[in-house]
């Protein structure tokens, strides 16, 4: 059973990724390329729909689908891959996405928890082997920030604010 870290809580994942024998599942996460290739396949189905973005995917291409999506998952395949942070901020700030924003991949580790959270990720699918207790503690590593960011991780002190 896969677990997802939501803030300081580890919860069982109610979602399935496409290919996990999941089309019948109530909540399924589909790669953007797959959604584009077979729009009809997913339009017809009931239940909740999520989309998985690869680092190269453009958030703008998803804009029209966002109202019907309950989840967007962005990939962090390695710690050095930073495009997902921009995807997260754009989804939250520009496209006002309010569903679950999930970080997934081998790069989702405790040392990035604060960065991910400030960029709008509220659900972390930790890399295999990552100590979830340590990741929970890591949410609290910084209680201050210079920059604006997702208000769900509200810093005690902050210098710059968004318009």
């Amino acid at each position, binding site marked *: 059973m896969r677990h997802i870290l939501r803030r300081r809580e580890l919860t069982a994942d109610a979602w399935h990724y496409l290919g996990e024998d999941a089309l019948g599942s109530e909540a399924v996460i589909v790669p953007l390329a797959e959604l584009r290739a077979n729009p009809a396949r997913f339009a017809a189905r009931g239940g909740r729909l999520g989309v998985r973005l690869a680092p190269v995917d453009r958030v703008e291409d998803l804009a029209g689908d966002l109202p019907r999506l309950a989840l967007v998952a962005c990939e962090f395949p390695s710690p050095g891959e930073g495009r997902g*942070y921009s995807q997260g901020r754009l989804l939250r700030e520009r496209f006002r996405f309010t569903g679950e924003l999930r970080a997934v991949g081998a790069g989702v580790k405790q040392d990035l928890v604060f960065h991910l959270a400030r960029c709008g990720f509220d659900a972390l699918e930790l890399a295999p082997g990552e100590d979830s207790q340590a990741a929970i503690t890591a949410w609290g590593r910084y209680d201050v920030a210079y920059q604006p960011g997702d208000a769900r991780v509200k810093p005690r002190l902050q210098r710059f604010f968004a318009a």
Partner: protein
Amino acid sequence: MYQYDELDQAVVDQRVAEFRDQTRRHLAGELSEEEFRPLRLRNGLYIQRHAPMLRIAIPYGLLSSAQLHTLAHVARRYDRGFGHFTTRQNLQLNWPHLEDVPEILAELATAQMHAIQTSGNCIRNVTADHLAGVAQDEVDDPRPYCEIIRQWSSVLPEFTYLPRKFKIAVTGSPADRAASEVHDVGLHMVRDAQGEIGFTVLVGGGLGRMPIIGQVIRQFLPVADLLSYLESILRVYNRQGRRDNIHKARIKVLVKALGIDRFRELVEAEWNENRAHAVRLPAAEVDRVRAFFRPRPYEILADIATPAGDDPRFQAWRRYNTHAHKVSGYRAVFVSLKAHGSIPGDMTSDQMDAVAELAGRFSFGLVRVTHTQNLVLADVRQRDLKELWGELDRLNLAMPNIGTLTDMIACPGLDFCSLANAGTLDVAKQIQQRFDDLDYLYDLGEIEIKISGCMNACGHHHVGHIGILGVDKHGEEWYQITLGGSATGFTALGEVIGPSVRKNEVASTIERIVEVYREVRADGERFVDTVHRLGIKPFKEQAYAPHPAAA
């Protein structure tokens, strides 16, 4: 200078706590070297040829006496009693122990210093003109804006994992003493027709394997838009910069591939889209930071000329190692880290302590680091110059060679750096030995030599009037020479004169080159201007000719 408030202090303290935990996990085997690497790099820690190397940030090159004392202490306690000032105004310690680094950072934090983002693929230490605030030709003091950028870019979640490193320089003077046109972003302070202060923004400059001069992306950016515009540039780069090839990952490659016009379109489109949610820079915040950089409480003094009969050594030093100040009765003083026989940019802890004290006595307790690897005491009363000179002379910090050929820049090279192809420090020494005659140096006038140990160009060789690049030829150290580069006044990339030369031939080759200059120069013409007037041909023809002594 800027003083930390509760937020600034908390950021560095929490960063230290985080890195302490990361180091502990690494040493306990919980974080592999591969996992630890990006984390330690973002805290300034490299693993070098002999040992770890710690790069401590000196934001825009400004230090208080207390901070310089702290650096002296840290270098003494955790290293071998000296440090190396770099071309990006940082200080490098070459021999710290990995397990001590959290403690070093904690000590730095008590003096409002850090090593945050001094390496790794993120926004690096922001640099500025070392004469900021005292130069006569200045539009405005760039340092408040550097400090604002320092804060905004520190622990910046969206841009901590960029395709590659990102360097920003700000210059307040048209003379550009910050080499800003060879930075990922260069900001030139300007005034618009209404007299409002803003920035001309350049993007995509850089050295390394693909040296390029930055291009103007925006002619005038109001101060209020500084951060939001930087954010837009960074976002376009973060999303579109290449990540498949480390040698093609800098923003300059993206700008070149798209062309400046297309890149500008993308940035402006992003900026317009982003405006509604972009980070704001309120005037009150600008004023808060600017207040820390108000002019020093200068006395009202007249300029004093040096009596003609004065000690000629002092006169030479006053002429070469001091610079005009915008306030009469004052001069900016260069502390030369280029004494012949020493390593360019190196300074012992004892020298640091002594200079920190001198700064307290003579220059409002402030010291600047230059990108040419010297220090500056910016606000010295002219009547104190002689006394200060005596003190610096005793410390071996008064070599009167600023701006001359032996005021060289050199990266650490093969002696310390694991990426190096060839040594740089012994080449510098060879040049110092050959050009040890001050009268000859003065006759040659202003010449900048810049030496890098490999293509990464940390020694900025492309923009040296004479550039020297170490290359590896079948395991031997050879040196490629370029002429005509420039980063100050105007920006130009040097041209390679021909095949590289053997290590023991570097200084004699340079001597032949400058001899050509002595023959063909026009009256009062600088070396680099002669090269630009005549091209490299006459120099190239003589550079390889057998040395008269050897013939």
